[in-house]
């Protein structure tokens, strides 16, 4: 493989990491609070607001059930409004964030719900406010689950980021389609797939390791 092609792969890898990294960070910034709220706002819970809970739940479901490629196209005006353009890696971050935030929110919700309800009662019994309960009890106790959720979100984002190539988003997926498929360069396709597999492995291993490190529930550490 020529140095030019290798250069292309390296550049595409950085584009992918850029898109996924920023989208994961923004998705977490929106998804974490949303997930905590979804997990604590049903009837009788910490931030009980059953109606808001149902409405947000419906919005999250709607976003999650929209196929990603349709979402990307459907929100092009919004993307242009936010990013100033609808083409390129930076523009791709907008649909990636919008797709990942509800996904992360549902994963966060599940992780927070795993925390023993007795701990909420305990913290309430010594006068903790709802915000203190979230920050000092729910999130620290759910941390292993939250890290695994984030890992899953990043892996999914790597897959989604390959799709934004279709709308000029750049990155590994774009490279694979344009060179590997459209220019009949199977070695390019193979290289892209190998890099993606390596990235997913790396992210998953790192996530597993961190989740294990912070998990004090097990005797064997």
């Amino acid at each position, binding site marked *: 493989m020529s140095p030019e092609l290798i250069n292309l792969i390296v550049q595409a890898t950085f584009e992918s990491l850029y898109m996924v990294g920023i989208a994961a960070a923004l998705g977490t910034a929106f998804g974490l609070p949303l997930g905590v709220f979804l997990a604590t706002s049903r009837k009788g819970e910490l931030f009980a607001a059953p109606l808001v809970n149902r409405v947000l739940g419906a919005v999250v479901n709607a976003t999650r059930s929209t196929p990603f490629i349709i979402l990307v196209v459907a929100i092009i005006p919004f993307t242009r409004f936010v990013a100033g353009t609808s083409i390129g890696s930076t523009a791709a971050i907008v649909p990636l964030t919008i797709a990942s935030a509800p996904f992360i929110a549902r994963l966060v919700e599940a992780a927070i719900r795993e925390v023993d309800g007795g701990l909420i*009662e*305990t913290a309430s019994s*010594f006068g903790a406010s709802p915000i203190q309960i979230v920050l000092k009890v729910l999130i620290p106790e759910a941390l292993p689950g939250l890290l695994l959720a984030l890992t899953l979100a990043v892996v999914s984002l790597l897959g989604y980021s390959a799709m934004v190539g279709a709308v000029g988003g750049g990155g590994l997926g774009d490279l694979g389609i344009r060179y590997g498929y459209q220019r009949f360069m199977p070695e390019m396709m193979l290289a892209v797939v190998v890099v993606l597999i390596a990235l997913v492995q790396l992210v998953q291993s790192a996530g597993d390791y961190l989740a294990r490190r912070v998990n*004090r*529930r097990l005797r064997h550490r």
Partner: protein
Amino acid sequence: MKAASMNAHPSLVVGEPIETRAAIVTEPDAMVRFEAISKTYPAYRGKPGVNALQNIDFGIPRGSITGVIGRSGAGKSSLVRLINGLEKPTTGRVIVDGRDISALAGRELRLAQRSIGMIFQHFNLLSSRTAADNIALPLEIAGWAKADIKARVAELLALVGIADKHDRYPSELSGGQKQRVGIARALATRPSVLLSDEATSALDPQTTRAILDLLANINRELGVTIVLITHEMSVVRQLAKEVVVLDAGHVVESGHVADIFTHPKHPITQSFLAEVIGDSLPVSLASRIVPQAAAGGQAVIRVQVRGAGAGDTVVARLARELGLDVALLSARIDEIGGQHVGSLTLGIPLNISGGEDAVTRTLAWLSQYQFPAERLGYVA
């Protein structure tokens, strides 16, 4: 002669200590007072509403160890959660240390909750924090300075006897050690009341004893009023001085432990007592009891005994005063609140002809001294 021996054994006199029974209700200096409390859970998702508590009116004396005993579903958990405001009464007021906690909400309630500690059956420790950091949590929430927290945590770890477990995570601690962390955490903000919700129900008997001893020490040394919710008679017997018996949302009896359990009135109280003193006979005896008298056999009589030394006295005096050859077939005597309670199963000899005059005289004697007795049958 009768009067003299009654003086010699004052505990044999079974009076009705009405005033002590009422003491827990009228206690003027109550730490916790329930006033005309009822608690109803509304119907929800097809489940009918539940009247968890009704007509609750009593006080918990300052500095006491008060047991609240009842079967599951009796309303114990609801009752204890009214004290620290985790639940609100449907009607009535809960006064804790002079303040109506049932009227507080938001920040005011959270401040009041710092003076009421609580420990739980399943310990409820944060798995992500070490023993020391678990104990520090209520202090962090109360906004203590870091240095003060550190000093207080060290003090508390020493108080509950696990200073060496400072950096251990809950998963590395035994049940008893976890509950010690729970107790230290509950005491962190120097509360005046400690609520214990079945705190020893998940522990083995030996560990239970150690934890109850620790609670007794804390009560003695810190003067903390302790409210023990339990379904186990052994817990009340070992630790509590006052007891409230709860059944189906009502207080059925309350007063000093010794009074309540030496003269249990309500069937629930009697069933709790039976757990300690037992009301079943040894199988070898039970299988021999027949309903008809046989010449040369014995009538089997079970006697409930109450009071210090009562058990020995009954057998000795029956033999001496009635001149009977009393056989002790089975006996179980225990101590509750410094008073002996138990039951004796006696064999009273029948005549050669099967006549029962000795049995009649025995029952008359027992009834004269107010020992409840019943005839179970006969053995050959």
